[in-house]
């Protein structure tokens, strides 16, 4: 079965420092990977997906199939980036290809 691992429950950085939120997955096929974000008192929302290859709010994430990773990176963290971040995987085949499997989340705190 597919699995998504976010090894850090908590991550704390200072404003202006680089930040990397780790995500590893286990799946033998070709998955689609996402990052979802939940800011304080807001609903969960999509941040970015690997197929789009875009930068959102300064964040980027590259799918590394060799290392089965999809780490989220930002070169200069801002206080407004403080949030809970979830990595998610979607299978690209099979009958349940609209299901997402989420990691347990990483709470990012950016200190002033």
């Amino acid at each position, binding site marked *: 079965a597919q699995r998504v691992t976010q090894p850090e429950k908590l991550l704390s950085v200072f404003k202006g420092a680089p930040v990397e939120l780790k995500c590893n997955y286990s799946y033998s096929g070709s998955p689609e990977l996402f990052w979802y974000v939940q800011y304080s008192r807001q609903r*969960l929302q999509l941040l970015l997906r690997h197929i789009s290859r875009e930068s959102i709010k300064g964040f980027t994430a590259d799918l590394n199939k060799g290392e089965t990773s999809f780490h989220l990176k930002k070169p200069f963290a801002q206080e407004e980036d403080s949030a809970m971040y979830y990595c998610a995987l*979607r299978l690209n085949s099979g009958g349940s290809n609209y299901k997402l499997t989420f990691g347990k989340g990483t709470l990012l705190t950016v200190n002033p």
Partner: protein
Amino acid sequence: DVKVTQSSRYLVKRTGEKVFLECVQDMDHENMFWYRQDPGLGLRLIYFSYDVKMKEKGDIPEGYSVSREKKERFSLILESASTNQTSMYLCASSLGGGSKTQYFGPGTRLLVL
């Protein structure tokens, strides 16, 4: 702008009660989902529906059932609430097929006493 609404933000129920959580989306989405969100456990899929009257079990369906009589509405039912069902419940919807963004509701925080 996609709107997913959930009937209650906070709910307090007693053990053994039957509990209904309602979710409505206004974007004609085919897929709807129910998750529970617990600290340290992330989001876990309870049930999802890919069409009216169609449903599939997610990863943790035990103790729950669902109903989708109309395309815009997806209900989660706790047949006999238990304290271990105290949680935040999130509803989401997406267009049909794969590779579609899921849009989430604000959540219902359920406390079972």
